[in-house]
């Protein structure tokens, strides 16, 4: 590939390491993912359009995007709060709580799914105290996605908050601003890029999430069927063309989100260098 031309370098191993890297990602990432677009491009366009604009599929996009947005929004509020508390305050058990934030990264998603379902069914530990249904509704999907997305927000905001210059806050205070004014006008603008990055990361992850959602969702067509599940259903019916068409829609959206996240991260880093 002429694109990856070496320019400088005293150290050895450039050809070997880059050659191995390129071969590896070509086999595991580029070739497999391009199958989605190759298969979609060779299928008749009307048929693809029919598949991806079916009411049941449209309902799944709406649900996946809606529940993911809702979960990411709640996570931004509580994620910033948790990051704030962990960075600024001292309290017993703080180290343990800080370590626990990463639990959703470490716990298999299917296990999170069955645990949350058990808690939020009508006679579950949490569900019995609620006057509305959570499990097997879109609310349950949101709860599962909140679980999955929380560490993304906390772990993006936390380091930025640590680097916020306290002198600026002191200056704001000495100029007569109260604590709330200082937070809204001085601290929050500093945190904005990181909070948005966390939001985008959580949102992107939530859109494709499968394991934690399928158990709590109930999986009713038109009501609680997320897009990844729809792909799974089509596959089980050996409708490979249909599954591929929907996957292509999701992939395009994922690429778009990746672009947004890269731009946001560039914005975050620019502010702190």
């Amino acid at each position: 590939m002429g694109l990856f031309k070496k320019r400088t370098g005293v150290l050895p191993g450039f050809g070997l390491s880059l050659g191995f890297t390129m071969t590896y990602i070509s086999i595991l990432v580029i070739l497999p993912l391009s199958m989605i677009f190759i298969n979609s491009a060779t299928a008749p366009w009307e048929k693809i359009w029919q598949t991806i604009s079916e009411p049941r599929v449209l309902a799944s996009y709406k649900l996946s995007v809606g529940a993911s947005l809702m979960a990411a929004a709640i996570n931004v509020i509580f994620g910033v709060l948790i990051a704030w508390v962990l960075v600024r305050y001292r309290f017993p058990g703080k180290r343990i709580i800080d370590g626990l934030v990463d639990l959703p990264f470490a716990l298999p998603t299917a296990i999170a799914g069955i645990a949350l379902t058990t808690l939020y069914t009508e006679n579950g530990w949490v569900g019995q105290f609620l006057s509305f249904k959570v499990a097997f509704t879109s609310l349950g999907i949101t709860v599962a996605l909140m679980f999955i997305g929380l560490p993304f927000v906390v772990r993006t905001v936390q380091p930025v908050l640590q680097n916020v210059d306290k002198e600026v806050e002191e200056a704001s205070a000495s100029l007569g601003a109260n604590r709330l004014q200082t937070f809204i006008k001085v601290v929050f603008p500093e945190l904005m890029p990181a909070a948005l990055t966390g939001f985008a990361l959580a949102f992107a992850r939530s859109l494709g999430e499968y394991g934690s959602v399928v158990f709590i969702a109930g999986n009713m067509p038109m009501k609680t069927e997320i897009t990844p599940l729809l792909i799974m259903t089509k596959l089980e019916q050996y409708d490979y063309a249909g599954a591929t068409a929907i996957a292509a829609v999701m992939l395009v959206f994922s690429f778009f989100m990746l672009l947004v996240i890269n731009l946001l991260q560039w914005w975050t880093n620019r502010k702190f260098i």
Partner: protein
Amino acid sequence: MSGHVPLPYSSPQIQKSSKEAEPRWVRYLLITLAVGFLGLFLVLPLLAIFIKAFEKGSTVFFEAISSPDAIAAIKLTLIVAVIAVPLNAIFGIAAAWAITKFNFKGKSLLITIIDLPFAISPVIAGLVFVLLFSSHGLFGPWLQAHDIKIIFAVPGIVIATLLITLPFVARELIPLMQTQGTADEEASMTLGASGWKTFWLVTLPNMKWGLLYGVILCTARTIGEFGAVSVVSGHIRGMTNTMPLHIEILYNEYQFSAAFAVASLMSLFAIITLIVKNIIEWKANKSMAPVEGEA
């Protein structure tokens, strides 16, 4: 990205005026809200797993984790991890070496491609290999002619897991090695060491904490992967069921205690992962300090 997060050691609290610090009741309220939220959404589900696992007594628990199907699932999960984690670790080292030690065009494009598996749905990661290797797939007829089975068999599970966990080690090593630069390696080469010797004696010790950290995250995800594996496994009991798939089957058969018993084993591993991760972060912070001072 979200990998290297320094531990939040708070600076010594100095007595502040009310304008610079929140009133005590606000502080307590915020701490209560944060801890309450984490308790409700993280701690409670974790507790539920262990309590439900032992709800029907320890006999049911031990029967569930020692049944032949469970043992087969544990074995398969370990086999997948033993193949996938080292491969992705070698890939991570090679990719980080190429990206951080040399300048070339298309570097940021390469990093974006390495990040891609983080952005795609696990279901799609499974689907793409069905499109390649199933009997209707691109290589299907050839594989059938040579009697090789990939989809609905162990190789498919390994390949789909490889795709999902591909970025973990590379993503830890790239930022770490970027801050370390190339000076150490160049010094070693100037002093006459060979390339491999330089790698083993200089680069590897420098990146050991980052590598270990990446390997731990990669292992956790490999073992717990559900969506991608679910697509390619075919759910053959005792043959192509990994631990998460075994849990799903038990749960869907209303064998809740058995499902949670196996789930509690995996949760225990997740907790150990978190503890090891925190120890590594602590160690890395300690050993990284002088390096950062030099830069």
